[in-house]
């Protein structure tokens, strides 16, 4: 079962801290040299692109908090094996500057060593999320 995989407990704690915006608890669960990648264009998403190191990751999280308010963050699925755990979450955020509500599902793969996240790879339907952020349909 997922719960028996070494990565499971750490990743669940990270997500619980994130849901509660407890960034100090979250920071303690990330390795100093964490490698963080979100497969989404950085030009639209503050979380997009690659970050290396805990400082860069939390600067980005702070940036998200400045621009968006998290309204809902529910985990739908967790699959863990060995030092990896993958999580699908249903997320609703509000863009502070416009009041636009953005609802999306995210998929995150976390690698854990010695109780800390050393790598993260995130996925999102970035086209759909971009349309919600921009507030209009993107015409091909």
């Amino acid at each position, binding site marked *: *079962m*997922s719960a028996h*995989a070494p990565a499971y407990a750490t990743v669940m704690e990270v997500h619980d801290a994130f849901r509660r915006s407890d960034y100090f608890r979250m920071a303690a669960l990330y390795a100093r040299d964490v490698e963080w990648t979100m*497969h*989404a*264009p950085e*030009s*639209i998403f503050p979380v997009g692109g690659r970050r290396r190191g805990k400082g860069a990751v939390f600067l980005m999280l702070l940036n998200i908090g400045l621009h968006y308010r998290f309204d809902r963050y529910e985990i739908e*699925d967790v*699959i*863990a*094996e*060995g030092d*990896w*755990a*993958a999580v*699908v979450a249903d997320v609703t955020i509000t863009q502070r500057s*416009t009041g636009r509500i953005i609802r999306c*599902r*995210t*998929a995150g*793969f976390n690698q854990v060593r010695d109780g800390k996240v050393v790598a993260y*790879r995130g*996925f*999102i*339907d*970035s*086209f*759909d*999320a*971009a349309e919600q*952020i*921009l*507030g*209009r349909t*993107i*015409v*091909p």
Partner: protein
Amino acid sequence: MTTEATRAALEDLVDAFQCGDHERLAARYHDDIDWLLYAPMSIFPFAGVRRGKSAVLASLLIVYQSYRIERYSVALTLVDGDRAASISEFQMVQRSTGQIVTLQMASFHRFEDGKLIEYRCFIDSFDSASQALGRDLDVAPASTPSIPVWMTKPPRDS
């Protein structure tokens, strides 16, 4: 299903896809499969929700008709009981234009009796769409007023 049975079923599914063995691939899909690729159907007609094996196979047919699969490799697989998650690297060529689309896929699977019954897939759909179209997408926000064309041109010499 046990974790090992699920791993074997997933490996067979991936191998069938890589080999282009459509019969073996079809045999691994459950008749009542729920299938979902999170991407815009306006650009990827095979994306969105598909219910049932025939709908999924019809969707895959569109993939094969529209694109030539150049490379498909699995970078990471996690298996847990009857479920599995994976990250794959995918490269395909659009047959009509020659545009190359390279993407990473996050896939979530659930198997029942050795057959795939639930599947959902996440990709960087914005970047993939841009690659498929061969150009950058317009990302001006809705609130940005449009600039009349005459304002973007230099004044005509008198």
